[in-house]
């Protein structure tokens, strides 16, 4: 039953996102139901205007009751909440996850997080965090969400 929900829901999301993709969001790879790659493009008139980044989504069979594992692959944007290893400090990906959220709503949230950024700086503890989380997924981290406004 659970796996049925997971497959059905992802199929449905895929169809919708392909039918009417939100602005700046494009599915790059979704051959498997457990790993998607989504390309996002920085919004106009923001610091990331036109820059392209790749987001990797990993789902387990508890999705959407459990959150997907989301991180940047390739070059990650320089942003106070994004670590250089691609991990993203965003509450909705962890504690504040709701099963009503979707891949596309997550992408929109991340884009808006980029858009509201006023200075391209890495997180203060970037080096420390990155060195400590080698080989770990962002879901292993106990995130503290300092500031939701950026």
């Amino acid at each position, binding site marked *: 039953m659970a796996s049925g929900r997971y497959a*059905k*829901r992802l199929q449905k999301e895929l169809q919708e996102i392909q039918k009417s993709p939100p602005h700046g969001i494009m599915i790059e790879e979704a051959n498997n139901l457990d790993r998607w790659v989504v390309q996002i493009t920085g919004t106009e008139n923001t610091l990331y205007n036109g820059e392209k980044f790749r987001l990797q989504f990993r789902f387990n069979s508890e999705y*959407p*009751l*459990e959150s997907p594992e989301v991180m940047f692959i390739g070059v990650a944007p320089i942003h106070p909440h994004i670590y250089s290893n691609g991990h993203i400090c965003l509450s909705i990906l962890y504690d504040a996850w709701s099963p*009503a959220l979707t891949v596309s709503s997550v992408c929109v949230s991340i884009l808006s997080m980029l858009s509201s950024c006023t200075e391209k700086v890495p997180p203060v503890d970037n080096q420390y965090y990155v060195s400590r989380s080698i080989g770990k997924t962002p879901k292993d981290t106990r995130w503290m969400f300092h500031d939701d406004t950026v």
Partner: protein
Amino acid sequence: MDDTLAQLIDMGFDPSVSQLALEQTNYQGVQQAIEYIYGLSTSNNLSGVKQGSTIGQTPPSSQQPLQSQKTLVDLTQGNNNSSNLTKTHVADQQLTSNKPKSQKTSLKSSIRESSETNSDDEYYQDVDDYEFDVPVQEIFTTNNSVIQARELIKTALVEIDNITNITETSPSEATLLLLHFQWNSNKLLERYYEDPDRVKQQAGVKAIDQYKIKINVPGQDCIICGDSLDQNNGSYLSCQHYACSDCWDGFITNKIKDGESIGMTCLSFKCTNIIPDIFVKEVVPKQYNKYLERLAQTFVDKNPNMRWCPVAGCGNALKADSKAETVASCTCGFKICFKCNQESHIPANCDQMKQWKKKCEDDSETANWIQSNTQDCPQCHSSIEKNGGCNHMTCKKCKHEFCWVCLGNWKNHSKCNTFDKDKVSKSESKKNLERYLFYFHRFNIHEQSKKFETKLRASTLETIMSIQNKKDKRWIDVKFLIQSTEILIQCRRTLKYTYVFGFYLPDGAEKNLFEYLQNDLEKTTEHLSGLLEKAEDKNIFDIKEVTNLASTKLRHLLEGVEEGLTLGGTKR
């Protein structure tokens, strides 16, 4: 024959004593047997030291045996003359076993019993009786209570049920009310009758909005799985976030599993509508009892004086009876620090532990690497990582040329293979790191030993059984092994944290004394550990002795730390 035996037993004699007496008197009759027993004990009386008989006992049915027993108690109480033990041990031991109240005598009798079995009489004559009378010492006398999880939840559920009925609220609302009044239901009801609405508002009880369960919602899909909701499978709260019953089930089950109960909100993103109890009950009937349990658990969760035992699968709750109390022990053997909710870490304090943990996190990974991969430039002391095979190094910073192997000046350099301990020079940072590693290493070793020794807990029972079976010892004689194991674990845990304490203790007289006590405890602990690992009947007396020794050393160390070492040191 059996009749006489039965009669004797009826009179209050121990079955085995009676049997023996009958055998010795060739089954002549009850009277003879009693006389035999009586005669044995009175003959002892001649050499026994007289003492007032003060020990309470269950009187046998006839006057005679009572008399004889009293004398026996006197005898065992005051008997320092072990030479006549051998003569009398049979009757003595067996008679006293009539009277289980006095552990002292039973312990003594056990010694005699064993002398009976291995007939090693001389050995027992040499033994100082007094030694065995000392019960194994308890080191910590904490007065915290341990509350069994089942009890606790039952009590809390009754309380919730009670308030639910009186105030006509739902269980979660009743829990909110109870929490607001810190589970003082009398106070709650008093205030509640004065002004129900105000109390409810203060406690955060919100009116239940409308909700629909398992109805047909034509034209809507489940926001979770996307199924259409036209088959009486749609449920929603007043916020109208439609979802099918299956998805609600999965969602609520997950939440309950994560420990949520009060204030569980709608599954939609950032929706703050609270899911009412009745909704849980009807949509996820299987989980409803679990849900109520979670409500009951808030009794501990929100109580500043209570903690859950952090051991996986234990589930007991610990309660500190006074605010001053910082250490509580659970029946599962775990000791917790009430302040920081971690394993009890005396003698180190919570702040030191915090610092220590951070240090371990920061240093442990890099430390190993630095130690194995870098050396300091002998001239400017900057850390240097070698990036090639050649051992002729040139420091990037000060251009000093030196040999990687012996750290000597490269020019005129020879005798690179001779050990010269004066030459070992190290930078400050590296010294610090080494100091830390020294303490960390020992901290770790004790932790590992403790892990092994915790496993002894399980095997101790088996050991006790096997000693009992093999050597005819009684439970009461060997059960102290359980305590010994506990004391060993306590010593280990304390030793582990003494290295944290020691790390932060500045050099000086205090530290010297501390290290002396630490070393002392360490030795005794190792001794005890070795003995316990191969516990057998031959060394149980040793074990008891070393247990008490360890217990004393541990107490000295802890008292010393508590009272200030140098002060405590001069006192002793």
